[in-house]
């Protein structure tokens, strides 16, 4: 069953002078096992939207149903939160336990699992994120490197075995290698476990590369949600919103401006490269 967002609106501090409408009439369904990218300028409501997916924020208007469970029902919230794993920006700042293993166990423990099950899940999660349990379990999370900390924090969420994983800028502040590792991990979660992924990102290339669909938020409203090729064909609108285009799309635009006839729009570098190589062979 999917996550259904129905006519969702959210206003911060309603009724006061500081009332601020952050989201306005958003309807969106996130299918099982789908990779949904969310893009939008700073302040477009991305963070507000994803916090509705597990009931951290509640709709001012409209509703959010996770596998049919309404986030407004207080009794259901714990179940919803174990279904929807949420990785905030810079998740390493939430580490608090004395050892990595105990920190990773925090989520499963809150779910009320027994000791044996928790142990299995902690090990499994650490292996998934590429931290060898034998080496890292008993280390203090504060003595890890930046990238390791981020992966340990991620393991803390994966140990809950969420059906959906929501990530807010998961690669922010990482070096290229760290970025690749996290992206590969997200991809393998989807491939091997069928985890649905919702990823907020400022990197159009990352979103273009992996997302099945992309939701574009602008000033709290859903501008569009569609396949990457459709979204990135609206390049003028995206640029107007202060967003970027994937490098491949930018390159196609630049080539066209130089008078080179490109039949297709591309948003993935590999596909564009294939096209260009084909042309080169043809010209010879």
């Amino acid at each position: 069953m999917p996550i259904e967002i129905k006519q969702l609106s959210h206003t911060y501090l309603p009724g006061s002078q500081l009332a601020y409408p952050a989201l306005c009439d958003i309807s969106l369904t996130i299918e099982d096992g789908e990779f949904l990218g969310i893009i939008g300028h700073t302040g477009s409501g991305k963070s507000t939207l994803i916090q509705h997916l597990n009931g951290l924020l509640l709709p001012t208007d409209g509703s959010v149903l996770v596998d049919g469970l309404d986030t407004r029902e207080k009794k259901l919230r714990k179940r919803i939160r174990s279904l929807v794993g949420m990785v905030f920006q810079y998740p390493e700042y939430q580490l608090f336990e004395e050892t990595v293993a105990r920190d990773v166990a925090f989520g499963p423990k809150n779910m009320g699992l027994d000791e044996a099950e928790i142990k299995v899940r902690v090990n499994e999660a650490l292996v998934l994120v590429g931290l060898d349990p034998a080496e890292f379990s008993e280390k203090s999370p504060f003595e890890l490197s930046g990238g390791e900390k981020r992966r340990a924090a991620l393991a803390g969420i994966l140990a809950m075995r969420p059906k959906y994983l929501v990530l807010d800028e998961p690669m922010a502040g990482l070096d290229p290698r760290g970025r690749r590792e996290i992206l590969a991990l997200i991809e393998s979660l989807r491939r091997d476990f069928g985890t649905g992924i919702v990823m907020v990102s400022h990197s159009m290339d990352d979103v273009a590369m992996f997302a099945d669909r992309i939701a574009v938020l602008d000033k709290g409203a859903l501008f569009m949600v569609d396949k990457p090729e459709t979204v990135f064909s609206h390049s003028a609108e995206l640029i107007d919103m202060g967003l970027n285009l994937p490098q491949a799309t930018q390159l196609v635009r630049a080539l066209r401006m130089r008078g080179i006839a490109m039949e297709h729009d591309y948003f993935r570098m590999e596909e564009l490269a294939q096209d260009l190589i084909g042309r080169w062979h043809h010209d010879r």
Partner: protein
Amino acid sequence: MTANITLGQYLPGNSVVHRLDPRTKIFLMVIYIAIVFVVKSLFVFLLPVVLLVTMFAFAQIPASYFFSALKPMKWLLVFMFVINLFATQGETILFQWKFIKFTQEALEQAFFMTLRLILLVAGTSILTLTTSPIALTDGLEKLMAPLRKLRFPAHELAMMMTIALRFIPTLMEETDRIQKAQMARGADFESGNIFQRAKSMIPVLVPLFVSAFRRADELAMAMESRCYHGGEGRTRMRELHFHARDLFSTVFLVAFLVGIILLEKMPL
């Protein structure tokens, strides 16, 4: 969840009281406190009440702020009244039932002590309502400056206050974020008894302290890389200046104090 807590009670405005030099306002508060404590007799008490109302009017503060300033004090006020009512000795017995009794003198004493406290709290709240925290620390720094000769770290103290004030909203935001992150992992801050609740705060407090130290480190580094070296020879972008209004208000309040002392000395 923490976003709805307003910090400090500064109420931005452009009244004559807002525009007074913070040093003047601090000094005026001291005189005001003196006035409230000098007053003893029944009718003279009316004067500081009138003074308070006048100050509120000049500062253009809505009356609702008067009550919200007193709200956290309400139990203390009740307590003060009751203690004074029963603990003060007197001769004219107004009420007696078994061992519980109180006298005319006690009633007066209780009434005046409570009124004094109300005047004190409401009056001093004018200072914080009309002065931004930054102006207040600036004023304090200037007032404490002469103490520097005695090696008192006036500038450093004011800087610490400014930084602390600056970081309160940042830390609140951070708390909110960490709390949400842990809630997403199933943490529950709302149920359980007081011990369980205190324990459930550990996953929030540890990361909060870690980040507070990190921020402190970063701030120190940023200040040093901009050549901060304490108050020695430091100039300001906005100098504090006294104006005519500072003089008038000071003269007025001092005269008020002297008048009240004379009134109290005079046999009526």
